[in-house]
């Protein structure tokens, strides 16, 4: 009986206290015809030794690769301290901090996190996490509609991560909210004023503005935010948090700043881990705070006036307001935010800047090297952060296969997301890549193109 501490004597004593003859009797309120008790697909239990061996074997099978894939999840160095502290039992095995006095560790950390994220995004306030970047964007769209009141339409550029757009549609559709997509300029990979102006006459609750966008390209965020505000729409930023160390924060976009900023928190110390757990962040202007979904922590005092922390504005939440809550979200991604907070503390402003700047410089250097190869050119003529799209002259899927055979994961096939964009690769070189890594990519790509 793994993880069950009861001895036979314990069971006997407990049943005696209850006044039951057997454990089975405790299930006597369950109609017999419902009792099943047949499990055919569950193997017999393994010892920890056995499962350890199995998992090591499976991990070995998957191995390590030199990866240039980004597309929404980024390989960054994670200081060893981050997860050694994050997985301490007191963080790892505690519940949502409902009992404030028994949860000051988590609560203070979350308050610190809120402060860091608000500052990084240039917004007034932050919540304590949502599930991931995509669902955070959907929540922002719902929030905008609640706030805007008169429009139930959201404008979203096609330069926003295609899966994020899919997630937004899945979630907002239920509430009869319409999602309208804005095309991009095929030369620059950006949303331009011309494309936007097609929608000038229509009302929208919000315009979503990615920075950088899915192609890695930097958008003209000031113009976009102002365009939205000019027509009484909210401006929702969807941003890469690492990039914010270098880039103008959403709170400073245009004349008024974005109203809501969301994004994927993974770059801040969260392992790639096949896609999760990550966390979504959300920050907004003060006046929107009561529309914000998710937990929020406030600083307050105890009976004796000592500084303390507690969940606050709970009247927004399902456990208090039930059907009138701003969202149904309950369990979110607390432990990930623990890691991100420790990560940001270890990096500090200069450290995070260098991570961003080195990622940017590495991608610049890589693109430069690759562009020199015959049959390779940049797809868009715009500044980019740490990702770029390359146009190949040969079938890109075959090229990727060849690279993989050399231990190199060469990027993402854009065609999977944009059927029109044939033989294009989205590539990324974060600060983890050395000059030799860039050479290696250049070399194997050259071979793949000529072989």
């Amino acid at each position, binding site marked *: *009986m793994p993880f069950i501490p009861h001895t036979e004597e314990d069971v006997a004593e*407990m049943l005696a206290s209850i006044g039951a003859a057997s*454990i089975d009797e*405790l299930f006597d309120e*369950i109609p017999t*015809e419902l*009792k*099943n008790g047949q*499990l055919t697909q*569950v193997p017999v239990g*393994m010892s920890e030794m056995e499962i*350890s061996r199995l998992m090591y074997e*499976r991990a070995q099978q*998957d191995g390590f690769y030199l990866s240039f894939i980004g597309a929404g999840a980024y390989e960054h160095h994670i200081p060893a*301290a981050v997860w050694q502290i994050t*997985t*301490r*039992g*007191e*963080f*790892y095995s*505690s519940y*949502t901090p409902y009992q404030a006095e*028994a949860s000051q560790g988590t609560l203070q950390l979350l308050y610190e996190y809120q*402060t860091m994220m608000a500052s990084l995004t240039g917004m007034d306030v932050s919540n*304590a996490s949502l*599930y991931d970047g995509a*669902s955070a964007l959907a929540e922002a769209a*719902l929030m905008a509609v609640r706030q805007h009141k008169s429009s139930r339409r959201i404008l979203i550029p096609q330069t926003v991560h295609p899966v994020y757009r899919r*997630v937004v549609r*899945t979630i907002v559709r*239920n509430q009869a909210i319409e999602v309208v997509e804005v095309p991009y300029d095929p030369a620059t990979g950006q949303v331009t004023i011309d494309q936007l102006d097609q929608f000038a006459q229509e009302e929208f609750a919000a315009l979503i503005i990615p920075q950088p966008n899915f192609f890695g390209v930097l958008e003209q965020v000031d113009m976009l935010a102002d365009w939205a505000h000019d027509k009484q729409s909210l401006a929702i930023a969807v941003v890469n948090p690492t990039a914010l160390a270098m*880039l103008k924060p959403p709170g400073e976009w245009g004349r008024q700043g974005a109203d809501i900023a969301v994004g994927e928190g993974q770059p801040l110390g969260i*392992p790639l881990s096949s*896609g999760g*757990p*990550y966390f979504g962040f959300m920050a907004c202007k003060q006046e929107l705070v009561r529309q914000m979904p998710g937990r929020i922590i*406030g*600083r*307050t*005092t105890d009976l004796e006036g000592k500084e*303390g922390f*507690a969940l606050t504005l709970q009247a927004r939440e399902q456990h208090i*307001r039930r*059907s009138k*809550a701003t*969202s*149904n979200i309950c*369990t*979110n991604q*607390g*432990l990930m935010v623990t890691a991100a907070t420790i990560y*940001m503390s*270890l990096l500090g*402003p200069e450290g*995070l800047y260098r991570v961003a*700047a080195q990622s*940017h*410089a590495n991608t610049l250097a890589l693109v430069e090297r690759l562009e020199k190869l015959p049959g390779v050119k940049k797809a868009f003529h715009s500044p980019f952060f740490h990702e770029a799209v390359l146009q190949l002259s040969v079938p890109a899927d075959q090229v990727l296969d060849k690279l993989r055979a050399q231990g190199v*994961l060469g990027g993402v096939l854009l065609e999977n997301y944009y059927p029109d964009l044939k033989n294009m690769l989205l590539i990324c070189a974060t600060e983890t890549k050395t000059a030799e890594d860039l050479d290696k990519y250049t070399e194997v790509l050259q071979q793949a193109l000529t072989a």
Partner: protein
Amino acid sequence: MLIFEHSRKNRRNYSQAPAARPARNNIPDNLKRRSIPLLPEVSEMDTVRHYTRLSQKNFSIDTEFYPLGSCTMKYNPRACNALAMLPQFLSRHPLAPEDTGQGFLACMYELQEILKDVTGMAAVSLTSMAGAQGELIGITMIRAYHEARGDTGRTEVIIPDAAHGTNPATAVMSGYKVIEIPTNRDGDVDMDALKAAVGPRTAGLMLTNPSTLGVFEKKVAEMSRIVHEAGGLLYYDGANLNAVLGKVKPGDMGFDVIHMNLHKTFSTPHGGGGPGAAPVGVADCLLPYLPIPIVAHEQGVYRWLTEKDRPQSIGRLSAHMGNAGVLLRAYIYVRLLGAEGMFRIAEYATLNANYLMAELRKLGFEIAYPDRRASHEFIVTMKEIKDRTGVTAMHLAKRLLDKGFHAPTVYFPLLVPECLLIEPAETESKETLDRFVVAMKEILDEIDTQPEMVKAAPHNMPLRKIDDVKAARELDLVWNPAG
């Protein structure tokens, strides 16, 4: 002290970032950041020290008994953490080719199969990142089902009043109107009310079974018949699956769609508020609508099914495939348990709850549903005590902290006044339960002899009672260096 108060301008951790700012920078000037973000400038050691000390201020499963009803706070095996964090698993990019992740995908596929078996459902999607998202997926599928049949007049979801707050919130978020139905004196759903509520506007019913009142909804089969006959579907909130794991399958109870909280029943950690994972299982009628991705096993190869394979899918709920690392932990856990271990969870969780209920009853605590078996949790109501002494459920909760026990869930479910929802979970030993009983006895005595002391609890924690009214009134949500 806040981490920012350890900060000093221009301090850096030299080991944790590139050695210099790179020479090249192509960011256009008008897109550059000018302000320095308010991240702390603290040494690595002081960061480690700060967060290590903060951690010590938490109660947790690894340090205290945590009988938080509805939350299934049980031991999170350390092997699950260690093995899910093997470097190859951690470093794998979600968009890496499937042939570089066959080891990982094998785990995911096997987990799907095991969860299908355990719940008696036709198929499972692993994508949902928490219970509430599982609910959203479930109700969205119910909507897709009705829509596909052209059955567009169904605008209501029926939910018992004992339900968790996520249930009504989800229904609304899914665009439905909530019809709340009452619970009878025995803790079961009022069948007459249910019959009165169902009709052509009924999209479905959301039910937790065992319910959050800690009792098994005996007439579930009849409820299923009533709802189905009205054309609605049945949603199973699997937050309490721990109580019946392997013993009763939601599929057999007539549910069309369910979620299961792996962070409860399958012992993945709560992490101070997530991450969780809440795979969704469906009966045949909802199969086409399952969210993607789903792992398939074809000719010895594992791959993700996408929209191409699943054209009627409701779509995606996360950027990738959900909380993969949490799913790995759950996979390891089920393999450690094995089939025998599954049943045992339900058995011993139920034994612990009924034992604790019996012992507390003997002390004189009032059990809210005294004629019922406890499932894996049960409710004590402090109503009489409060009326007599002014000591509330919350007071008692805080006093328990003083004695080294986490408090039970208080004031939920809403329909029981001054309630304590107590869930001991199967991993606690009899000795621990007995110590808890002693503490409850002590408090009972204290309530009689020194009620004011109890009301002023906690006394032995690093802080006294936190003023959360002030927290909401004088909002202080971010630290400001100006003070």
